[in-house]
């Protein structure tokens, strides 16, 4: 098989995963200007909940195909519970404060949730490997790929397209864009900014949990997975331009392809791949690929 094709396929699969774990983070920053470090814990909560619920489903002897539905249900539940609790219970009291304060607040939430996970699930890993191979596999040349990788790719495209459609084609999406551009002006025009924040954070939390749920079948779910993931997600969001959905998508593709090429051609550079992309992009465009020109307020 042509090695270039392998680089492309591996790169796109990895990019899909990167986009899925980063999209919730960029959505929340885009709307609320909050660099949500707790996103890593929401990812971990999604993974744990999916492993528990889908694992229970399979262990009870139900149709294994139903485990996919259980994974999504688990992620949605995490988003619907954790999102409102964090936003209504804590973040809304912090709006208007400096961005760095909000980073510290979400870091505190991250630490609390990490301990909550250990208290709830313990430190032993959870395995949910069945969904990864349940759909079978397909061959490209002499390489075999699980069909689940196509699911990841499809989910990344679906999430990206849906978000772009909602933001650009629906009335509520346009209201959200108005809040992104100018919160005070949007509020003056009658938009319920508080509600927009609530919905956005809940959606972002749900996306973080979906990322974890979709990753659960490929890893051993254990304490610490959130910390590893948040670093990658931040890198993607920064490369793409903070808060930019197309930027996050392009950054994920760039990082995925560069890492895949490094692994195939120069494995010793794998460690450096993502930071290489970040360094090059930030030298050329210090605010990321799709940074938005901001009007100066007087």
């Amino acid at each position, binding site marked *: 098989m042509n090695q270039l094709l392998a680089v492309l396929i591996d790169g796109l699969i990895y990019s899909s995963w990167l986009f899925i774990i980063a999209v919730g983070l960029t959505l929340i920053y885009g709307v609320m200007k909050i660099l949500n470090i707790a996103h890593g814990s929401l990812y971990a909560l999604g993974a744990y909940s999916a492993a528990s619920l889908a694992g229970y489903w399979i262990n009870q002897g139900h149709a294994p195909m139903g485990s996919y539905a259980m994974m999504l249900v688990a992620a949605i539940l995490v988003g619907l519970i954790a999102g409102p609790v964090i936003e209504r219970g804590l973040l809304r009291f912090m709006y208007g404060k400096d961005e760095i304060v909000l980073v510290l607040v979400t870091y505190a939430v991250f630490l609390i949730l990490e301990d909550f996970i250990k208290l709830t699930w313990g*430190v032993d*890993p959870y395995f949910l490997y069945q969904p990864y191979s349940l759909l079978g596999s397909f061959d490209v040349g002499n390489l075999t790929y699980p069909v689940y990788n196509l699911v990841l790719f499809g989910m990344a495209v679906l999430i990206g397209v849906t978000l772009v459609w909602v933001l650009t084609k629906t009335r509520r999406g346009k209201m959200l864009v108005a809040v992104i551009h100018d919160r005070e002006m949007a509020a003056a025009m009658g938009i319920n900014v508080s509600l927009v924040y609530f919905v956005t954070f809940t959606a972002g939390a749900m996306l973080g949990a979906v990322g974890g749920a979709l990753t659960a079948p490929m890893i051993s779910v254990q304490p610490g997975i959130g910390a590893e993931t948040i670093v990658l997600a931040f890198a993607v969001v920064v490369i793409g331009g903070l808060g930019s959905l197309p930027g996050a998508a392009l950054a994920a593709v760039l990082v995925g392809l560069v890492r895949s090429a490094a692994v195939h051609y120069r*494995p010793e550079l794998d460690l450096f791949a993502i930071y290489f992309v970040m360094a090059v992009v930030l030298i050329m465009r210090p605010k990321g690929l799709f940074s938005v020109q901001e009007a100066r307020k007087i």
Partner: protein
Amino acid sequence: MDWNFSRPLKTAAAVLAGATLAITCATAHAQDKPIRIGLVTFLSGPAAGPFGVPAKMAADAIVDSLNAGKAPAPYNIKGFGGTPLELTIVDEAGGATKQVTELRNLIERQNVDFVIGYISSGDCLAVAPVAEELKTLTILFDCGTPRVFEEASYKYVFRTRSHATMDAVAGAMYLLENRPAVKSYAGINQNYAWGQDSWADFTAVMATLKPEATITSSQMPKFGAGQYGPEISALLQTNSDVIHSSLWGGDLEAFMLQATPRGLFNRSQLVLVAGEPYLHRLAGNMPDGTVVGARGPNGVYAQKSALNDWLRQIYKERAEIYPNYPAYSVAMAFLGLKAAYEKARGAGGGAPATDDVIKAFEFLNFDSPAGKVMMKLGKGHQAVTGTAYGTTRTVNGQVTVGDIKYYALERVQPPEGVKSLDWIKSGMKPGNW
């Protein structure tokens, strides 16, 4: 002046009696005061499940059993020389810088008498000079890097398990004895000290024993990478006979979960130099024919003895499964320290000074659940043992190990004064032990 001799005599007698009482009370108090041991092991993060928590559970079980005087001879005196043990447990997660601070806290604030700890090689390298500075006897119980005593010399630091060179040496020997026609091999190892050292040792041994075998790929994902799609594709494309890996923790588990459905192990035989702790965890995802090491004759490779039966029993009562190799590593640390402490205490009784325990510990031979341990390297501070390897086979859904071979220490360990890599490259001549 009319002298009354009876009064000073009475006073002297009272003072003497009071002093005697005070000394007796103080002695009794000293004997009742437990020996405080700081235990540092991973309680969170990817190393907790397979390594840190089994080590902690083993330590709890061992301390309870020793305090009750229920361990087999020669460890059947309660605690250490009759003095009970008390554990202060610290999470090893957080990196080397944090561990240096934690060690200072343990010694300077919590006033522990001894420290037993450290699974990560990076942590061992970082804390050893600090333990030396703080003059507290510290036992490295599980980390593998040979650099601790090959690149430095310590008075207060000991390691009661063999260093990791034998993992690669015996792993390659076992592989070539069972599959002499190996033509090519690849590796996937984490990109930090342990992974790099393990791959360097393995390739050096293969170059010595089978120079015609070619290296097809060396994958070095970062620690905690989690996603191995490109690495698995790259390894699949090499069609190597063998894949060497020192991956561990969540990284190994994720790699196995992702590689098995892609058929990587149908093309290549897997050698996991530290794979023993995962045998029960990866049932269903551990291919038959995987060569597995346990960093010594530990875990499934430990041979029957009163001490091994004891460890298996007390661990199973607590954990409901049999102990894996980190549990054996921590057992060696406690039993080695106990043997040294009681030797230093001697017939005279009383708590020995740290310097006396150190003297007794250097070049000590002691029994462990995995057999005889000899403190022969690092000027008597580094243990040596033989090791064992075997091959996996799944029976009734459980991963078992068969075709077990044991390797004497002189075949797999460099002698004193010779660096591991130099010894391997010079043909691995058995040392004079």
